[in-house]
C-alpha cells in the first residue's frame, strides 16, 4: 500500500510492457489508409485558420467545386497553434484532413514531408509559370518534394494613423511619410515626435517584436543557413535586435502583446500610431479596430520592403481523392480566385497575372480611399527572397521570447541577447543542428 513499494512494482511492469508495446506500435508505423477526416462523407475537407482562405470561395466549394463535377470541398477552421494541431492529427493517424493550409515558414513541415503528396506527381508543373518564381521554389523541400501549393504572399507596409501624424505636425501623405521614415532610425525619430505632440501621447508600435521581425525579414538570411548552420548570432540578426531594443529604450512601444484584450483596446483607442506588418493584416485591423476606419494610411516600410508570411496549401497522404484535391487547388488558387481572395480577405495573389486586373486597384475607404496595392504591389516585387530552414521556428522562438522579456519584464537587453543565443543554440543542438 505504501507508494514507494508500488512505484517499483510499476517500474517493473512498465519495463516489461514497454517492449511489447513498442513492438505493437512499431507495426502500426505506416498509415492504415483510412485516416482521412472525410472518410464516409461526400466531400473532401480542408483545414485552415481564420482569414487564411476566402469564406465565400469555401462556401462555393462546399456546394460543389465549379468545373469539377461531383467534387465538394468543405473548410474546417482550426484555432490555436495550427502547426502543432496538424502534426498532432498526423501523429494520431486519424481525422487527418485531405488538404491543409500550411503556414509560413513552410520549412517546418519539411521533416514530415512524406505526410504530403508531391504535387508534381499530380501535374503541378503545368501551372508553374502562372506563379511567382520565388514562392514556387519555396514549396519544394531539399529532397525535391513539392509539399505545398502557393496560397498568398505577405508583402509588408507601414500602416500609420494619418490623424495622429497630422496632430503631431508630421507629414501625412503616404509619399511624404515614406520619405520621413525611409530608415528605421528616422522612423524612431518620428515616433518620438508622435509621443511628444500627438493627443494622448500615442506609441509608435504595439510591441518591439514587430521591429525585430520586419528588420530581419529585410535580410535574405535568417537563423539557420542552407547547410544547417546556426547564423542567428550574426550581424543581420543583431542589427534587427538592436533596433528593437532601441525602440524599447526610447519608450516608443505600447508593450501590448498581440491578441490580448489590451492590444485590442490600445489599437481601438488610438494609443498605437503605426504598425509594420503584412497585407493580410488588413482584415485583422478592420476587425480589431472598426471605429478607426478612414484614419489609417499605408506606405512603404522603414528600411525597405519585406515579406511576412504568406501561406501554402498541401495535400496529405491520407487524401481520399488526390486528383480531385489538386483540381480544387487549381480552381481555388488560380489567378481569378486569387483576385477574389484579395478583394475579400486581403490575401495577396501569388499569380502575377492578377496584379494588372482593375479589381486589384479598388480604393479602400478604411484607408481613406487609398489603393492598397499601390503600396503592397511594389513591396511584393522588391521584397528579398528569404531562405528559411526547417529549423527556423526552433531557433527564433527564444529570441522573440527574450524580446518580450526585455519589453514587459524590463530584463537587461544584453543579458537577454546572450540568453536568447544560448537558448537558440541549445534548442538547435537538441535537434542536431549547430
Amino acid at each position, binding site marked *: 500500500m505504501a507508494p514507494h513499494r508500488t512505484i517499483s512494482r510499476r517500474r517493473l511492469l512498465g519495463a516489461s510492457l514497454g517492449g511489447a508495446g513498442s513492438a505493437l506500435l512499431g507495426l502500426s508505423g505506416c498509415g492504415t489508409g483510412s485516416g482521412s477526416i472525410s472518410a464516409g462523407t461526400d466531400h473532401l475537407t480542408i483545414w485552415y485558420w481564420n482569414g487564411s482562405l476566402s469564406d465565400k470561395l469555401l462556401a462555393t466549394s462546399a456546394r460543389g467545386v465549379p468545373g469539377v463535377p461531383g467534387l465538394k470541398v468543405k473548410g474546417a477552421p482550426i484555432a490555436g497553434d495550427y502547426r*502543432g494541431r496538424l502534426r498532432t492529427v498526423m501523429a494520431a493517424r486519424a481525422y487527418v484532413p485531405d488538404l491543409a493550409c500550411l503556414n509560413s515558414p513552410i520549412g517546418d513541415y519539411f521533416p514530415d514531408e512524406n505526410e504530403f503528396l508531391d504535387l508534381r506527381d499530380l501535374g503541378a508543373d503545368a501551372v508553374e509559370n502562372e506563379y511567382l518564381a520565388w514562392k514556387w521554389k519555396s514549396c519544394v523541400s531539399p529532397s525535391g518534394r513539392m509539399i505545398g501549393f502557393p496560397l498568398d504572399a505577405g508583402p509588408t507596409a507601414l500602416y500609420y494613423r494619418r490623424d495622429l501624424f497630422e496632430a503631431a505636425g508630421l507629414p501625412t501623405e503616404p509619399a511624404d511619410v515614406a520619405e520621413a521614415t525611409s530608415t528605421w532610425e528616422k522612423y524612431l525619430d518620428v515616433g518620438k515626435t508622435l509621443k511628444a505632440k500627438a493627443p494622448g501621447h500615442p506609441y509608435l508600435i504595439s510591441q518591439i517584436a514587430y521591429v525585430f521581425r520586419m528588420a530581419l525579414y529585410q535580410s535574405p538570411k535568417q537563423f539557420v543557413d542552407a547547410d544547417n548552420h546556426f547564423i542567428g548570432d550574426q550581424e543581420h540578426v543583431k542589427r534587427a535586435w538592436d533596433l528593437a531594443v532601441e525602440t524599447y529604450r526610447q519608450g516608443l512601444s505600447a508593450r501590448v502583446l498581440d491578441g490580448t*484584450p489590451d492590444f485590442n*483596446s490600445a489599437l481601438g483607442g488610438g494609443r498605437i500610431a503605426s504598425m509594420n506588418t503584412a497585407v493580410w493584416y488588413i482584415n485583422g485591423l478592420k476587425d480589431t479596430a472598426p471605429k478607426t476606419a478612414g484614419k489609417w494610411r499605408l506606405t512603404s516600410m522603414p528600411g525597405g520592403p519585406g515579406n511576412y508570411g504568406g501561406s501554402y496549401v498541401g495535400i496529405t497522404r491520407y487524401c481520399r481523392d488526390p486528383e480531385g484535391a489538386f483540381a480544387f487547388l487549381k480552381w481555388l488558387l488560380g489567378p481569378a480566385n486569387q483576385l477574389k481572395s484579395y478583394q475579400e480577405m486581403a490575401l495577396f495573389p501569388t499569380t502575377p497575372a492578377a496584379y494588372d486586373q482593375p479589381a486589384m486597384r479598388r480604393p479602400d475607404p478604411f484607408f481613406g480611399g487609398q489603393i492598397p496595392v499601390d503600396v503592397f504591389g511594389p513591396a511584393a516585387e522588391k521584397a528579398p527572397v528569404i531562405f528559411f530552414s526547417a529549423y527556423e521556428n526552433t531557433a527564433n522562438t527564444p529570441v522573440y521570447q527574450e524580446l518580450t522579456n526585455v519589453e514587459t519584464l524590463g530584463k537587461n537587453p544584453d543579458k537577454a541577447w546572450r540568453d536568447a543565443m544560448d537558448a537558440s543554440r*541549445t534548442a538547435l543542438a537538441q535537434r542536431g543542428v549547430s
Partner: protein
Amino acid sequence: MAAVAQTSSAADVTEPVRARAPRGRLRRHLPSYAAISPYYLLFAVFGAFPVGFSLYLSFQDWDGIGDMKFVGFRQYYWLLHDSVFWHALLNTFEIWFLSTVPMLLLALVLAFLLHSQTRFSAAWRVAYFIPNVTSMVAMTIVFGSVFAQAGLANSLFKAVGADGVGWLTSALGIKSAIAIMIIWRWVGYNALIFLAGLQAIPTELFEAARVDGANSRQLLFRVVVPQLRPVILFAVITSTINGLQIFTEPQVLFYSDDPGTAGGPGQEGMTIVLYLWQKSFNDLQFGYGAAMGWLLFAVIALFAIINWRLVSGSGRDDRPGIPLGKETGRGR
C-alpha cells in the same frame, strides 16, 4: 478496517468448509473478481501500459509521425540542461505555495465563521462552493480580462489613485494572478471540508476543557487544531497533488496562435504540465515529453512519500490517507 474483519469472518462462517477446495474456492470467489476486474483491466490498458511505454519512448527521438530513433539517455541529458524545465518546476512550486498557504488559511477562517452560523447554513455552503463547480476555461477567460493592463483590477487601483499592476506582464503578477484564480476556486471547497471537521469534534471535549478553565486561545490550540489535524493534512495532500498539475489557468491565460507565448512573458506562468504539453503537442517531441513525464513522476513520488510519512506520523496508521477531492484536479 474493523468492518472488514467482521465481514470476512461472517463470510467464512456462512460457507461450508468443503468449499475451500481450490477449484470450488475459485468458483466461489469468481463473482468478486469479476466485480473488481473492470478497474484493473482499464488501469492495465490505459494506466500501466502507457507508463511503461513512456519509459521506452523516453529513449527515442520521435515526432509521432516519422520513424523512432533510439537516442539512449539523450532526452534526459537535454532535460537536465533545459533551463525552461527547471524554471517551470520552480514556477510550479512558487504558484503552489502562493496559492496553497493563503487558500488554507482563508479556508480555516471561513470554516470557523461558517461554524458559528446556524441559520441559512445550506445557502452559505452553496454560495461558497459554486466557484469549484464552474469550468476553469471559462473562468480563466473572465479573470484574464480582469487582470488585463486596462482590466477591472487595475481600474480599481486607478480609481483610488494607485498605479496599475502588471498582472500579466511581471513575474510576481503572473504568479499572483494564477494563484488568485486557484484560491478563488478552492477556498470554499476546503472551508467546507474544515467545517465538517469542526462539526465532528465532540462537544464534550469543549466542555471538559472549559471545566478545566481553558480560555479561547487554549481551546483553539489544545482542542480544535489537534482534532482538525487529519482534515488539514487531507487538504494539504489534495492541494499538493492538484498544485503539481496546474495547467488550465496558465494555458488558457496565454493561449495564442503562437506556441512561443506559452507561459506568458518570461515564461513566468510556465508550469511543468504546461511545458510537458507544449513540448509534446506543439513541438511534437514525444520522446522529450515522455522523459519529462518520468522526471515528473519522480518528483511526485517523492512528494507522495513525504505525504505518506506525514500521514503515518499523525498516529493514524490504519487510515490509508484520504484521497477525496483529487478528482476535481483532473481539469486543472
